[in-house]
């Protein structure tokens, strides 16, 4: 059913549009078309430009103080990898693993660059080269991810959440710390290493104290958001499934000339299931008037075997006075189900700025309010009396043969 389609779309990002109105694909790193990280072709796809153009732009930008490299790395970290198309293209799905010759080629290029730097007098010296190498390896380990869990997630996501990445983070961090230590130890004499280290620790500690809570809460929010999204999606999927099966069956049973009890049972269960499937999330402030009326209607249906159509317009907190109103409405509904002979009772509750109005109506036999006032204790005590105790009013409109309506009104502020 259409809910399938609607709910499946929950996970699909809202497509932005290009200037000509066509939907623009979101920025994702490409799986299939990649030289390093698939960033360039991802950006090209997103903007509608040839990936090669983007690549040339990156190279040119890199000449400008390495700006291109920084942008590239940031995009790599932040843009998620595009989702794999299952079994459509097994080659494209495969995680990029360099062949031996590719690795060898890369290593040779690196050596060449180092030699050129060395010969041309640009060599920074060992004091710089080793820490940089170590740091680079650490960085690579830190951000390299196992092929399985990187689908559609950005690198930051993976490092924050992946349990398996803890080892990787530890090793990577150690390498980077080592690199920093070597760099510091080389740059300054060992005698100053102690104070340097202390100063660094103090600085790191201070930064941690300042930024720690914030980082922690961001991480927390990410995790919370993810788990609540998963829950919502699971529920949406189940709702779509049950909507196609159980809800339809329950609707059918109610139509069939089944015994009244059976139809009533089906109605009650449909109501309960529906409340769970499409229900509003419970608010922190506590129960709301709407929910209370709905569950009251469900109880009345079960107990009296009548159909109760409960409609609530607006909503309010369920304070003590609202509870009293719900109880009075419940009593009126029970009365209608018990005495009117009608098969359906209409309950209508409207929350206005200054008052809450409630109407309980049936198309049953009706009665003469004056004549039976004495023996109908339910109406006198539970409805009229209760409403008046809480500063409200209740009025019974009934005529034999014309059904009954009980009108209740409760001012929002006590009179």
């Amino acid at each position, binding site marked *: 059913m259409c809910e399938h389609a*609607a709910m499946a779309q929950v996970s699909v990002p809202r497509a932005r549009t290009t200037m000509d109105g066509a939907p623009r694909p979101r920025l994702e790193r490409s799986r299939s078309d990649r030289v390093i990280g698939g960033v360039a072709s991802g950006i090209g796809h997103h903007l509608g430009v040839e990936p090669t153009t983007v690549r040339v732009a990156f190279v040119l930008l890199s000449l400008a103080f390495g700006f291109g490299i920084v942008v590239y790395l940031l995009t790599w970290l932040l843009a998620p990898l595009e989702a794999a198309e299952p079994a459509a293209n097994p080659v494209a799905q495969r995680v990029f693993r360099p062949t031996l010759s590719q690795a060898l080629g890369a290593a040779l290029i690196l050596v060449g660059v180092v030699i050129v730097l060395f010969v041309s007098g640009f060599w920074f010296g060992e004091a710089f080269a080793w820490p940089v190498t170590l740091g680079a390896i650490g960085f690579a380990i830190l951000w390299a991810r196992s092929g399985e869990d990187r689908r559609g997630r950005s690198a930051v996501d993976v490092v924050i959440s992946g349990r398996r990445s803890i080892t990787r983070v530890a090793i990577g961090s150690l390498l980077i710390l080592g690199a920093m230590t070597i760099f510091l130890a080389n740059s300054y004499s060992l005698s100053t290493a102690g104070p340097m280290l202390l100063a660094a620790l103090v600085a790191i500690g201070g930064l941690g104290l300042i930024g720690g809570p914030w980082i922690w809460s961001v991480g927390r929010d990410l995790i919370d958001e993810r788990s609540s999204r998963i829950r919502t999606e699971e529920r949406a999927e189940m709702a779509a499934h049950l909507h196609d099966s159980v809800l339809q069956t329950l609707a059918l049973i109610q*139509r069939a000339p089944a015994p009244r009890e059976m139809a009533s049972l089906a109605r009650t269960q449909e109501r309960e299931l*529906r409340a769970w499937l499409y229900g509003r999330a419970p608010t922190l402030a506590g129960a709301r008037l709407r929910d209370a009326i709905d569950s009251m209607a469900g109880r009345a249906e079960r107990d009296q075997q009548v159909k109760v159509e409960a409609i609530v317009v607006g909503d309010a907190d369920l304070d003590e006075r609202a509870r009293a109103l719900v109880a009075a409405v419940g009593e009126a509904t029970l009365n209608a189900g018990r005495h009117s002979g009608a098969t359906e*009772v*209409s309950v209508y509750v409207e929350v206005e700025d200054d008052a809450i109005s409630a109407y309980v*109506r049936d198309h049953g036999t009706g009665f003469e309010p004056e004549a039976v006032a004495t023996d109908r204790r339910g109406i006198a005590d539970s409805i009229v009396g209760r409403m008046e105790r809480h500063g409200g009013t209740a009025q019974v409109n009934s005529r034999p043969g014309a059904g009954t309506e009980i009108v209740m009104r409760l001012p929002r502020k006590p009179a």
Partner: protein
Amino acid sequence: MTASTRAAAGVSVFVVDDHELFRSGVRSELSRTCRIVGDAGTVEQAVAGIVRADPDVVLLDVHMPAGGGRGVIDGVRAEGSRAQFLALSVSDAAEDVIGIIRAGARGYVTKSISADELVAAVQRVHDGDVVFSPRLAGFVLDAFASEADQPIDPELDLLTARERETLRFIARGYTYKEVASELHISVKTVETHVSAVLRKLQLSNRYELTRWASDRRLV
């Protein structure tokens, strides 16, 4: 809405629902008073079948694979059919109700409606009137409740006092006839009021309406 008010004799009806059992159930219930000219279980079959059979009224399930009730309405309208649509669904979520009305249906009833009431609703839609169930009236009152936001087009974005009153009675379970006698107006005037409300429901750009519809990607 009692069946005795009108008989739906001879109205041709087409039933669209992807549940076989439900279709046959509705067919047998309606066949006593209406002329069933066909049924369909998918959007594609429904559009083709409705164009071919040219029914007066289409009973339309809101939820169906590949397009849903809206897909059927759009497809049929594109072919220039003059059939009227009455939506029938197990769902009573506001976005479903509002969405299908905005797509062009002339009324909305839930699947738990009794056979007599269903016949009366079919007749009402055939007569060019709209079918406002209590629940639909409740949703509309909810959607038009807040006066705070600036109406762009007061003609469409606000209900008149009389329309509001009429809807309140319908939400309370009153039939059109009972509403008419309570308000000392004719049944025809009640029908005029609810038709006006339906028009506002379909054309207004009130925030609540567009939000509900866009939740289901119906606009």
